[in-house]
């Protein structure tokens, strides 16, 4: 099953029109220069 089918079958959310796009909140580390975001890490 691909991700599209998985979500079509199991997603419990309602798919309501959003008032605005999700930007999230990104933290730019002054010391490391890395951007902490949602990494699909190991």
């Amino acid at each position, binding site marked *: 099953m691909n991700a599209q089918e998985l*979500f079509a079958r199991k997603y*419990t959310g309602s798919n309501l029109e*959003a008032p605005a796009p999700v930007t999230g909140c990104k*933290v730019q580390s002054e010391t490391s220069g890395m951007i902490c975001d*949602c*990494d*699909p890490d190991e």
Partner: protein
Amino acid sequence: MSLPSRFNAWITLNRACNLRCKWCYAASTQFAQTSNMSMKTFSQIVYVLSGLPIGRVALIGGEPTIHPEFWKMTRLLKEAGAKVALVTNSIKFADVGFLKQTINAGVSGIMTSLKGGSPLAYLEGTGSSSAFSKVTRAIRNIEDSGIPHEVSITACESTMQNFAEIVEAVKASGVQYFSVDTERPVMLKGGLEPGNFPNCPKIAAFLMSAYPVLVQSGLNFCIKVSIPFCHFPEGFIQQLRDGNHLSSGCQMINGSGLIFDPTGNLLACNHLCENPLGTLGIDFSDGEGYYAFRNRPDLASFYKGMGTCPNQRCVECEHWTLCGGGCRLHWLCAGADELLGQFLKKGG
């Protein structure tokens, strides 16, 4: 839905690892030693990425540093103009020569994924008693090299219990930047792994207890919030924002990520490793082909759905643009009754 003006990519070089973390989804593949990405697949991915506006490419695993062609792959990406980041357990960087070769190959930033705060914690969590001393040596080597570096921990049951010990270890290692993430569901064989995944209230309670420990440590830190904000008091979220400690949102919600598994499958998220969106060489072979793939009705519908509100309360919530209703993987495992909170009163 228009496509993002810039993408980030994650390339999973392998599922093999030099640790055996008991919480890792790669355990389901027995940390397959045969799962190394081939140079041919890697080259095809680089070709696709070179035709797209890419901000950053992260090499991940398994453990990418043990891939036999790790440096060769890094050089190829660098030569293609990519900014290459590395997500690693850093054990190999206890050898300063290995670190120098890695930087010379073109890695421009390292995220060390820490597994515990003591030799005992590593033994219990990863099966290796020597790993902790190697990792602490590696962290000093990386910091001394001057390469951008952050240490990250993904809090699960065991690390939640030993968090103060972990913070002390991070502080003692001389790390400049520390990020705290929390475990997210992984879909395997159509179900949720691990079975004892902490629920949203438990994750929220942990993060609220972790925050003062982090502040007191004096570390520069951020907390990645992947559950709906309504599990916290509103003042807590504001406190994180005011201190520049809040990280939220997700590449899957805004459709800005390309995640490749070792065989060239394109994933929506590495936590959906058995449910690819498509396959390199079949669904697309270059940047232009990727755009066409993304505009295919099933893909367009998938990403449009990712950006919608999962519940009417999200539509009306002032935190929507930063919260986004939390990680969509949670919404595969539970419904709104479990996943949405009530914005706790202070002390509630």
